[in-house]
């Protein structure tokens, strides 16, 4: 399908607004694009390109958490508007994640930011919330067949429940089919070995990159 010059200009303007973090204008611009006949898939792709560009700038250290958060919020506003118009095959699902803050810890900030970025990167997230019992994590992994389990902790109360999750995954025979990522201010790289998880991060964006790479490796092995 050929695209008119006006529509192409609007799409460029949309990307400029997105990359300029003009969050107040983004929903209006999506509506204008749809009125001008733009395909929802095209708007989604443009948003994803912007997200990638912002993510790259974050990786390079020129953008920080606020830019990522605003980008995630803009992406959310775009998908809320065009989501119902997209056919179910238009959005690829890259993987499924069971996510939560372990028992004893009620902090949700890191988890919420990770969730926002993971969803913007086409992951389906089953968010169990905070203060989650080890059994609940394992049960959800078994029930959904999720490829990834993510646990986020800001205080050391989460350490023992994380250990227990790993023990239960082994006991239920689920460990080999699920990759486990831990994150949060109190976690360290050393804990990967000590807990037997697959990866650790302090950074939600890096977390999304890690799970993408873990899944690619798992697919290559399979």
């Amino acid at each position, binding site marked *: 399908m050929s695209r008119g010059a006006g529509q192409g200009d609007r799409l460029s303007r949309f990307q400029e607004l997105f990359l300029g973090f003009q969050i107040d204008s983004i929903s209006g611009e999506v509506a204008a694009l749809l009125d001008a006949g733009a395909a929802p898939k095209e708007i989604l792709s443009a948003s994803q390109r912007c997200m990638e560009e912002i993510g790259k700038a974050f990786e390079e250290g020129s953008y*920080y*958490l*606020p830019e990522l*958060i605003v980008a995630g*919020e803009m992406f959310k506003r775009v998908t809320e508007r065009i989501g119902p118009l997209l056919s179910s095959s238009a959005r690829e699902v890259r993987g499924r994640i069971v996510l939560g803050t372990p028992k004893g810890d009620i902090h949700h*900030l890191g988890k919420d*930011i990770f969730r926002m970025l993971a969803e913007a990167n086409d992951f389906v997230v089953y968010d169990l919330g905070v203060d989650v019992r080890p059994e609940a994590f394992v049960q959800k992994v078994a029930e959904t067949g999720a490829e990834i389990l993510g646990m986020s902790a800001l205080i050391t109360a989460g350490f023992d429940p994380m250990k227990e999750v790993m023990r239960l995954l082994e006991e239920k025979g689920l460990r080999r089919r699920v990759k486990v990522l831990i994150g949060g*201010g*109190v976690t*360290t790289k050393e804990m990967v070995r000590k807990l037997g998880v697959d990866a650790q991060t302090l950074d939600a964006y890096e977390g999304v990159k890690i799970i993408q790479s873990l899944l690619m490796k798992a697919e290559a092995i399979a």
Partner: protein
Amino acid sequence: MKGPGKKIQEKDRLAAEERLEQVVRLEEPDRVPVSMMIYYYGPFHTGTRMSAYMGRPDVYRKVTRKVYEDLGPWDIYYNINPVSRLLYSFVLMMKYLFPGDELPDDVMAQVEEIEYMKAEDYDRILETGYYFSDLAFRLRMLPRFCKEAQSIKPARLWVLLARDIVRQKLFWDRDLRWCREQGLAMQIGFQAEMPFDVFSMARTVIPFSLDLFQRPDKIRRAALRLAPSFAESCIWMARLMGVPRVQCYCHRTSNSFISPRQFEELAFPSLEAVVCRIVEAGMTPILHCDGDWMKNFKALRRLPAKKIILQLDGLTDIFRAKEEIGDHMCLFGDVPADKLVMGSPQEVEEYCHRLIEEVGRGGGFILAAGCEIPYNARPENLRALVQSAYKYGYYGPQASS
């Protein structure tokens, strides 16, 4: 504080208070001082109910003495305990859930992050004058997240706070006497969350991140409007408590939350105003810097030299911090929580040895955990932390004796 107090080790040349003052001035004392920021760990060490420990000053006192007896001595006593929930909420401006009330009896208190401040509250701050602006802001916000402040008229709320301040003063007076008897220096005369950081907490991170793009100038001006009144309250309270140090919480100002440019333009002006006023009053600001601060050091170098303690929590590379700002501020930290909980005494000792050798070189360093001691830390690891100050921490001729 009166007199330097007794020496806590035979080899010591200085009392803890003198040692602390010397490291703040970036001088080399007789030994690296050690601070143990113990709060939630106490009840687990002694098998005490957390709710009783947090709610009853007599229980708190008994527990802290027991922990000190078992693991001490060390140099700096972390006097964190509040005598009331209302006062705790007033200084930290966060919604706390307490054991024995919203949480089970035997767990530590936790913060529930709720959006209690609206975007229009920046305007409200800017409409008020400078005098008592921070106090007025806190009193206006408290009923929105602190149940003890709900359904109470502002005048009555102020009376209740004044009563709790007096109770805190009386409680700390007894603590101060005990500290002197032990030869301990007291860490805190007053503590409070900095204005910029209160905004981030009160709006919560996602709305606050949007504010940084939608109304940056209002954030900067509102924080600056609160700064002088905030600083005066800190100074007044620290004077009342009799300890010339103010612990200023910067939970949300690191590069983990905002960019160096946002720090420089939006957060630093109010931070600078607060810090300079505290220094001018002859007190030591302790900047409690959670997160990664590496890219903020350039701005921090504009603060007064040899007057400030910089507390790092393990997320800033303290070894690089020594190179970049160690000639300007006293560094405090930063044994990571996971080492204290999951590590061995040998691992803790090795890390402390490295801290002492590299960050402690030439003085200007206080050995401590990165932030508070975790409640589930292993006692043998805490002993290793304290003892490493005596094993490796001596300077000059005492080092080899």
